[in-house]
């Protein structure tokens, strides 16, 4: 957490510390869904304030796409990420574009299937999870977002309960796919903890 809290003229804490998350990849990887689930989980189930924004090109598939979540105890003015605490890069372009915006010692989660050159390990806390492959094994690339969330959980467990993430996922995926998405979440988490998915 970056501490920049100040008391403004009216004596109100108007700028509270922010935890900034950015997810980057290409259209169809669930980048927007991951952002929405994280935002909802932090706000509805953890009682924090959060702003989730996303931006993508006109392409429904294949175009570059990013989603951001800013989490804070108090008011959030500027809605976008300023210097990310956590970067999830599901594509090489996503990593290359945003790695420079990651704080020193920030966390970066990459998918080695599409990210070939891994970021500098002593500058950032790098985690590699083959989210695309794991999703592919249990049913298709469209479950990649739940795998990524599972892989992400151990890294932010100090800020959010597993149940909040699970609840966020079940609210934001088609009802008939909740089960597979939960399985995807479990495998992503297990891989992050034990280095293997099954």
């Amino acid at each position, binding site marked *: 957490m970056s501490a920049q809290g100040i008391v403004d003229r009216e004596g109100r804490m108007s700028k509270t510390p922010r935890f900034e998350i950015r997810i980057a990849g290409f259209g169809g990887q669930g980048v927007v869904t991951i952002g929405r689930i994280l935002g909802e989980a932090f706000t509805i189930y953890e009682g924090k304030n959060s702003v989730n924004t996303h931006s993508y090109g006109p392409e429904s598939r294949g175009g570059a796409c990013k989603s951001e979540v800013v989490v804070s105890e108090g008011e959030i003015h500027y809605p976008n990420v300023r210097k990310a605490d956590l970067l999830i890069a599901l594509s090489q372009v996503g990593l290359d574009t945003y790695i420079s915006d990651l704080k020193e010692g920030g966390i970066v989660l990459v998918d080695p299937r599409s990210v070939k050159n891994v970021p500098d390990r002593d500058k950032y806390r790098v985690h590699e999870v083959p989210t695309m492959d794991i999703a592919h094994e249990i049913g298709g*690339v469209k479950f990649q977002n739940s795998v990524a969330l599972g892989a992400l959980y151990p890294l932010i467990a100090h800020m959010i309960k597993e149940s909040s993430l699970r609840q966020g996922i079940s609210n934001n995926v088609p009802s008939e796919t909740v089960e597979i998405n939960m399985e995807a979440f479990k495998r992503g988490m297990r891989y992050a903890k034990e280095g293997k998915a099954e």
Partner: protein
Amino acid sequence: MNRIKRLSINSSLEAAKPMNRLWIDERYCKGCLICVDVCPTKALKASQEINAKGYILPIGNDMKRCKACGLCELMCPDFAIAIEEDEG
């Protein structure tokens, strides 16, 4: 409609993967696999692994069967498959 003689030359053939009379350009192919389905002699098939963009590309199933009929090139939505120029 005679055999499609004037074939489109994939001008950047070096970038494409040669497969005995067929070139597939991985920069353009999005793994829709229409070519695999329309090939009358089943010369193509879907590969097993996914590429960096998450697509499953077509690969040769049995390229000896390929008659260079051009149906795959005709039906490809992304100009990603081309038949080797016919010297004859």
